[in-house]
């Protein structure tokens, strides 16, 4: 790309915007393809080949494949982490398909298959042997064994390939770089905006929009990378990183709920500004270390109301941001209507407010902040949020968050039953294995640091044959460990 360097130095990196041709149509095709693959695999598992259900499922799959090939662009299905790409279009994950995606992804990964290419002229009869092989035990050398078996079948137009590890690493680096940039820009923006509010200056709405749009794009493009950024806990910048983290987690939950891109933006905007009311509370109270007096607590409890009122001061009543106002106002309101501020009229917090409440609660509890020096473990927080109704979180939204973060979210410091120390680096994409993340082992069982941390999938057979599981989670702060350094 000519001129790329100059651009990078000028504006912090070149970005890509817009959609790709026929993206919407490919999305539909892709989701149907995965659903059909999943359906056919399930049918084959339950019934003999000649069964009507199996035949019907294979016909459906063949019809979808022909529809895609009929576009003249070929058919390449790639699995990267928990995401699928059909001809380079990333298929959008939502509530209606995340389990399907997870199951198909898991089936492919078991055989070390990173991509599938299907050629023009693929016959209906090729699917049953291919899918049956996918369902078999992968054995010691998954992909070579799979390919060997496949060569003995009549399958000629379906070509599996290994995960493009090197390419993926490169891509991962780029994605992570982009995530860093988005995150840093958002934190800077949050600082500027909230600073402007504190000083009573006009807020640059365009900057706010751009930051939220960046986060939405990042979540849609590569959710794990931006979630990884939330592990960058900076006590001094807590107020601002917290706003950005809440924005990220809210958009992540929103995506799981299948919200459209613009709705994700609306949600993200409200989440970013959810604590704007705190800017009207004296800084020495907000940032006071240690306990607060009753009066100070009373003041803190005013921030949702102040946030609502503050948002009226932007925009001079043009395009009044009602949804964002409610997110600021209701994010400490429990699902049963209690919490604060107190309601004099009947009120059920909006879905967006409930999402922000979950994201806010999760990030706040896992962070070091002025009146919480020892944060909770992320897994504990999720468990508490889900199981303790007194906390007032919407349990389904907590589950939606867990479906993205796993039981042990990225950045959780864990001790394995081998007494090795590890940091959770990725969530298991299989929804049935949310409790078995991918970790980076950072020290051996004696506490000796590993120079080049090894990534380990706790759900898979390890190279050394010694299966590990999580013994316990521990507090990185307690030992001065910065988990972000192992992830970013």
């Amino acid at each position, binding site marked *: 790309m000519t001129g790329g360097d100059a651009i990078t130095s000028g504006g912090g990196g070149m970005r890509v915007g817009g*959609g790709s041709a026929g993206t919407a149509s490919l999305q539909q095709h892709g989701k149907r393809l995965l659903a059909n693959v999943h359906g056919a695999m399930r049918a084959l598992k339950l019934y003999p080949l000649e069964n009507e259900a199996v035949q019907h499922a294979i016909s459906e799959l063949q019809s979808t494949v022909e529809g895609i090939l009929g576009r003249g662009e070929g058919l390449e299905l790639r699995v990267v982490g928990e995401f699928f790409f059909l001809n380079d279009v990333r298929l959008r994950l939502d509530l209606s398909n995340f389990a399907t995606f997870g199951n198909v992804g898991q089936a492919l990964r078991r055989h070390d298959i990173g991509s599938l290419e299907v050629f023009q002229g693929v016959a209906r009869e090729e699917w049953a042997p291919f899918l049956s092989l996918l369902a078999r035990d992968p054995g010691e050398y998954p992909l070579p064994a799979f390919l060997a078996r496949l060569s003995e079948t009549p399958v000629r137009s379906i070509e599996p390939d290994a995960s493009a590890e090197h390419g993926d690493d490169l891509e991962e680096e780029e994605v992570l770089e982009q995530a860093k940039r988005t995150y840093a*820009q958002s934190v800077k923006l949050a600082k500027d905006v909230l600073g402007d509010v504190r000083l009573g200056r006009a807020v640059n709405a365009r900057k706010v929009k751009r930051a939220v749009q960046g986060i939405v794009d990042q979540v849609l493009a590569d959710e794990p990378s931006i979630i990884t950024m939330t592990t960058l806990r900076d006590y001094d910048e807590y107020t601002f990183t917290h706003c950005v983290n809440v924005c990220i987690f809210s958009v992540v939950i929103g995506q799981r709920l299948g919200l459209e891109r613009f709705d994700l933006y609306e949600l993200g905007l409200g989440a970013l500004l959810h604590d704007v009311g705190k800017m009207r509370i004296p800084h020495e109270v907000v940032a006071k270390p240690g306990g607060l007096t009753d009066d100070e607590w009373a003041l803190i409890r005013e921030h949702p109301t102040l946030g609502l009122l503050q948002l009226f001061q932007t925009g001079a009543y043009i395009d009044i941001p009602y949804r964002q106002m409610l997110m600021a106002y209701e994010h400490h309101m429990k699902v049963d209507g209690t919490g604060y501020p107190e309601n004099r009229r009947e009120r059920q917090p909006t879905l967006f407010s409930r999402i922000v409440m979950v994201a806010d609660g999760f990030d706040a509890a896992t962070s070091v902040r002025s009146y919480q020096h020892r944060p909770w473990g992320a897994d504990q927080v999720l468990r508490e949020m889900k199981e303790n109704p007194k906390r007032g979180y919407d349990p389904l939204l907590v589950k939606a968050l867990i479906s993205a973060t796993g039981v042990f979210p990225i950045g959780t410091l864990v001790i394995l039953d081998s007494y090795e120390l590890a940091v959770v680096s990725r969530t298991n994409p299989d929804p049935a294995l949310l409790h078995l993340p991918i970790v980076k082992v950072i020290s051996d069982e004696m506490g000796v640091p590993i120079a080049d941390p090894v990534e380990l999938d706790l759900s898979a057979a390890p190279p050394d044959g010694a299966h590990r599981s999580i013994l316990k989670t521990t507090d990185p702060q307690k030992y001065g460990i910065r988990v972000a350094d192992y992830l970013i």
Partner: protein
Amino acid sequence: MTGDGFSIGEGGLGATLPLDEVQNLVVTLGKALRASQLYDENNPVYKRFVKALSDEFTALWSEMDEIALHVSEDTLTLDGEEVYSSATRSDSLAFLLYKDGLRVVQFEPGFERQVPRFLDVLNQARHAREDDDDLLTLLWEAELDCFQYRYVDLLAEGIDLPEVGLGGDPSEFGQVLEDARAEDDEVVSGEAAAEQPPATVSQDDFNPTLYALDASEMEELRRSVELERDRDVRGAVLDALFDRFEDGDAERRDEVFDILQGLLPAFMARGEISAAARVLKQMRSYETAQVVSESHQERITSLLDRLSDIETLSQLIEAIEVGTIDPDPRDLAAFLGFLRGDALGVLVRATFDTESLDLKRILGGAVETIARRDSDAVRRLLASPDPALSGAAARIIADQRIESAAGGLRDLLTSEHTDVRLAATEAVGALGVPTLLGNVGELLRDPDVDVRIAAARVLGEAGYRAAAPVFRDILSSRTIRNAERREKIAFFESYGRLGDAEAVDLLDKYLNGRGFLGRRESSDIRASSALGLGRIGTPEAMMALDRAHRDDDAVVRSAVTRALQMERRPEVPR
């Protein structure tokens, strides 16, 4: 160039690039952009340019998979070849793209269908003020499937990326594990005393069914998303403001009040009348509420007064009439119904002036609502120097039987304006105000026929015998013979209602008598007399009617038949 399948300038087309066609395309794009600035979307000129541009894109897809243009301040280039340049920036397509950060734009097949939206985005960006959304934000929101771009984010300049550190002090690692082993030993020896052991994994953590969303839960979440879309978020915000106004201190109330005060015109300007009505309703309840301080009550009163004044309402009505806003009729009726009595004049005037029947009906309804609530306002309107308003007030009084306002009618009965006298007369009739019947009697000789008829009917209905001599005098004169038939009927019937002792003789004479040379009265007079006799209803009157029962004149015969069937009214002596 980084991933995303976005490989610009690497097509290897080299010398085969259709440069001329792309140059023409960009020229057409510039023309279409200008056309979109000058004409609206239905204009044939604009449509012609959009079609030309779409056709050029379509034609190019047979030669190129995509069209990727690099953007500089003054030029657009295709694979290093210039396809557009502009010496000035004011009208430059390249600069329009460049100034907001675009550096590469790529059009893909299918873009031809998105041309109007793209032009709209460019137009918005061209006219954007400093605080408006720029091109990047507008493109993001437009979500054009077949248009990709690379950009530098000028807003992100000078941002430091997070730095990676060493991860922590390796000497601590051993301590972590040592602590962990120690905690394990405690658990084994049953000495775990902590109520909530820190950072310990629960058995449940390994039960994925507790964490995964099942089908019914996913369905519930889907429903929540649907509900959220239809949610009245504006109403929820207003409720929040009301809550905080009610329990806030003076400063908080001031702030909330200022917001509500700012919201009202915003709602009205956007036609969000239901929201304005909601605020108005709440304000009215606060106006007299104990919990609200005197100073706030004063502010509320002043606001409600302003909303009902002529300037505000004229603005609203004008906006509705010219179609700037199109509120739901029920919302509008509710809003207007909350206005002060002082709004009556404006609303009444508007009912006369508007040509919209729907609006007329809504305004009429609002007038009724307000009048019913505020009779003092109707009385004040009665005294209006504007005859249209005072007349309307008289009609409101009649329709709603506002007896307390009757006194104000006296002056109107002598108004120089016919409509006012007429309305006042009818109002006196509707209210049955005995003290004003004498004044009405004077209107029996009014220059206007409708007023005379109304006066006759009012007096007849009231059985106001004191007016009998005047009736007799009029019925005996030549004037009545020249009157319209409806006036004759009104006078004869009303006279019949008065129960005057001389009435039967007079009317019998008109019905059955013959004059000089045996000549009878006109059909109209005879028929009207018959109706008058019917109203008297005494045996003598019936006998007179019987005599004309087989009259040769069909008009008379018909009137006699009707008169004989009239319901007899008990006589009310006056």
